[in-house]
């Protein structure tokens, strides 16, 4: 069953000058057709300005399509009556952890979503505890968000979304402002959500290492979906990725270069272990 589906989705930003006259139109998303199965882990890749964030904002009904339709859990995002249902079903985590934490204490921030939904007090506490445990931040529930590291803050943001019991979580470059260890922390938490809690994950990123575990990868370029497939399929097309200004993981690149020089290696090697096995085994 598809949890998120887009059909011929087009979104245009209209640029205006100071008098409000239309200066030009930028098509950020251009006829995108996307189907996401419930429970899957999807990654959307693309360099800056490829339209991936704009696409993400459609899933949470922050942006309305210019043309085409987006369905979340069977609901049309253009339907204003379904707006809050959609936002509850499809949670969203943004890039900057400082700009999305509302509470002055970790637990209060996680409770913000359920409070808005009108969940009874006792259930809020229950949800907050569950969500904080799921991302491994329960010990920090009484902390001020200002005292946490970037990775921890981002995990709190994820818990905040999780407390709303969404069916799908859209993460819009959640690791872009983090250091490598923070990045690992966040990705580990996201994978756990997908595998243990069964939440559908749509991860938007430009770090290749993060999508290795995805079920399906979409590569965007100039608002269009340029490539799609499993990580292995996508990574085996090294030249194509390079032309889209994307880097492949170092191991994959090494394997690719070795193969080009005549070594017998399978396509799309993703991890160091795989390469070791292929070389020595």
């Amino acid at each position: 069953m598809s949890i998120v589906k887009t059909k011929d989705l087009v979104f245009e930003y209209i640029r205006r000058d100071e008098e409000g006259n239309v200066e030009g139109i930028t098509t950020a998303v251009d006829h995108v057709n996307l189907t996401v199965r419930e429970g899957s882990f999807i990654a959307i890749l693309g360099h800056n300005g490829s339209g991936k964030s704009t696409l993400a904002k459609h899933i949470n009904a922050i942006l309305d399509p210019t043309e085409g339709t987006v369905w979340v859990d069977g609901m049309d995002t253009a339907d204003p009556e379904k707006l809050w249902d959609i936002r509850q079903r499809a949670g969203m985590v943004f890039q900057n952890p400082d700009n999305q934490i509302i509470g002055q204490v970790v637990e209060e921030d996680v409770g913000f979503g359920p409070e808005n939904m009108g969940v009874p007090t006792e259930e809020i506490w229950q949800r907050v505890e569950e969500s904080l445990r799921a991302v491994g931040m329960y010990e920090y529930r009484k902390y001020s968000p200002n005292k946490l590291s970037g990775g921890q803050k981002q995990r709190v943001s994820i818990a905040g979304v999780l407390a709303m019991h969404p069916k799908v979580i859209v993460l819009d470059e959640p690791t872009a402002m983090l250091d490598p260890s923070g990045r690992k922390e966040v990705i580990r938490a996201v994978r756990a959500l997908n595998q243990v809690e069964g939440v559908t994950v749509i991860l938007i990123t430009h770090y290749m290492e993060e999508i290795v575990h995805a079920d399906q990868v979409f590569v965007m370029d100039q608002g269009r979906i340029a490539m799609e497939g499993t990580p292995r399929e996508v990574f085996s097309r090294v030249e194509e990725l390079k032309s889209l200004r994307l880097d492949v993981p170092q191991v994959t690149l090494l394997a690719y270069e070795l193969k080009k020089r005549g070594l017998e290696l399978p396509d799309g090697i993703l991890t160091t272990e795989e390469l070791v096995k292929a070389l020595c085994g």
Partner: protein
Amino acid sequence: MLRDITLGQYYQTESVLHKLDPRVKIGGTLLFILTLFFYKNFLGYLAAILFLAAVIRLSHVPFSYMIKGMRSILFLLLITVAFNLFLTPGTVLVAFWKLKITQEGLKAAVTIALRLTMLIIGSSLMTLTTTPNNLTDGMEKMMGFMKIFKAPVHEMAMMMSIALRFIPILLEETDKIMKAQMARGADFESGNLIARAKAMVPLLVPLFISAFRRANDLAMAMEARCYRGGEGRTKMKPLQYKKRDYLAYLCMVGFMAGSIWLGRLPVL
């Protein structure tokens, strides 16, 4: 270390006063201040001083912290006292040069000094024992009746608590911008007051831009989490009166009645 600054002047410790409902503390402080203006003799003030001393003991906050709040208004206090002392007409007690101190002036000066001091200490006792967040919550609940007049009470409270949350973040940002500009030769330290104020202008522009950007991001994040104003919203930590809160109200009313009765006895 800007992130560690304490907002408002909350003093973290365990005490009955810290545990009280913020509404009791706000209401109590207002009542206390009001009571101060009913006294006609010094017995009332004595009662108020004793009561305040007892509450300070209960709060477990060191007395020096209360005094800190006084420092900022010391100048104002001195001027008020001086005016009252020298400019009240009546029976002259002492006179030198062009100044004269009258009996009425002396009484007025002492009264105003006592009132102002207790007013400041009383209200700082409230801010010292209540977190800013709790204060906002209490005010939101107390102002709830204003909703009848379509006053955006919830929105105001939300704005206040968000402002509180962003103060340390914006401070840190200011620090960053300052350092970045100092690295390129900006001078924030030398020159007179006007020159220094002028040096701040190039600091404010990037700070404002970034604050607006943050506000925009935050608004989007809040909407994404189903925020749609106060209506239909539940509370994770609802304010509920407990036994000790009723008891505190009782003490407060008892003090008010007792001290006003004392303060209006026909002595002095």
